[in-house]
């Protein structure tokens, strides 16, 4: 079974540009999450999809970030325009459900560098 896959693995862009990150969850997982780790800080929750609906987007930092999951399969996270403080590693995770015995499985992340 393929795990959570994220693309690209690394992106370097200039301040003010736009970047789109993609996440393919484990097949059959309705729940998809985005997290990010900024340098020196802990991994922090951004938002949670159940199928194509946003269940919880309380962690999204501001309106420069837009997450979508059309069709309830893969998800994209767009940052527009990118700022220096957006640099970090963006992780995607998926789970079959939200119960205690259904852990979230993480992808390897996209390392985003804003110059």
């Amino acid at each position, binding site marked *: 079974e393929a795990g959570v896959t994220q693309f690209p693995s690394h992106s370097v862009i200039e301040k003010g540009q736009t970047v789109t990150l993609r996440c393919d969850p484990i097949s059959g997982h309705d729940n998809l999450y985005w997290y990010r780790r900024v340098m020196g800080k802990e991994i922090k929750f951004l938002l949670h999809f159940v199928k194509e609906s946003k269940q919880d987007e309380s962690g999204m930092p501001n309106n420069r970030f837009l997450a979508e999951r059309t069709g309830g399969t893969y998800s994209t996270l767009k940052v527009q325009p990118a700022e220096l403080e957006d640099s970090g590693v963006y992780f995607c995770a998926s789970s079959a459900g939200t119960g205690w015995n259904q852990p*979230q499985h*993480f992808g390897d992340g996209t390392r985003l560098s804003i110059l």
Partner: protein
Amino acid sequence: DQQVKQNSPSLSVQEGRISILNCDYTNSMFDYFLWYKKYPAEGPTFLISISSIKDKNEDGRFTVFLNKSAKHLSLHIVPSQPGDSAVYFCAAKDRDKIIFGKGTRLHILP
């Protein structure tokens, strides 16, 4: 304001000995705790979890202990092996989201 705290950034343990990683939390409403392991350039991998109604959960070489009154949990690895060298994240489940600590880097010495 950190709700899950791992106060030791790093820990070195001799191969074959016991590794003990500690974690404290502040929110008494958390009812489920997890440990994740992370290698460089990879995502966190789920290791073991414990419900707040239990005080111990064991899976092979890994045991997690929970002390609710002290709001403290620990992960024991026995015996420690070279492949255990990684960053370990303590985490708590808050409804649908996971709240992570900053991690402890474990070095297993030969």
